[in-house]
């Protein structure tokens, strides 16, 4: 009964490949996010969706495309992977009007 779950947990892939990370939340929240944690552990928001609508897109390359098929899912597709994309990607969700964000366990992406 995990609240926010991401798959896969680890992803190792070659430069130039296309990959997807999936995220699902069973909390009934209306807002979902993707955050990127770099090698220095710095966390930065990438995208935010509210009721399947994109509301935040923080200067992320076009190679990153989020997709929200419904309120409970927010997937992240990455085209033409680059070495600099190596990071831990965290999905999170919250309910509009409430403060607390609930995070997934993270997906460690390594591009070789």
């Amino acid at each position: 009964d995990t609240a926010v779950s991401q798959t896969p947990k680890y992803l190792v892939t070659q430069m130039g490949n296309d990959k997807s990370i999936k995220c699902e939340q069973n909390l009934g929240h209306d807002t979902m996010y993707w955050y990127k944690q770099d090698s220095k552990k710095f966390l930065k928001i990438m995208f935010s969706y509210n009721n399947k609508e994109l509301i935040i897109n923080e200067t992320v390359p076009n190679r990153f495309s989020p997709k929200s098929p419904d309120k409970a899912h927010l997937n992240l597709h990455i085209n033409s992977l680059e070495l600099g994309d190596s990071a831990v990607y965290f999905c999170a969700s919250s309910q509009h009007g409430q403060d607390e964000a609930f995070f997934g366990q993270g997906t460690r992406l390594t591009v070789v």
Partner: protein
Amino acid sequence: AQRVTQPEKLLSVFKGAPVELKCNYSYSGSPELFWYVQYSRQRLQLLLRHISRESIKGFTADLNKGETSFHLKKPFAQEEDSAMYYCALTPKEYGNKLVFGAGTILRVKS
């Protein structure tokens, strides 16, 4: 622009010693501030928020608007407090996104 600064990358203290994790913020509006914690091999989770003014696991944090600070304090550190701590703010007019500081690793030594 919103910014959160945590000046210490690593803070190492002995068990039973007081702890203060520093956080300063830059934001023109009225901020909502949080501390999130990530224990080893666990997911990031909320520790406390300034509006609730509560103490969680012995930690407290007071918002000082004059000094634009939200330092996290605990009078007596425990070994289980060892973790990565992130200070964060929510600029409400930009949705519910969290702007994080760089994080501080707290190591409590026995």
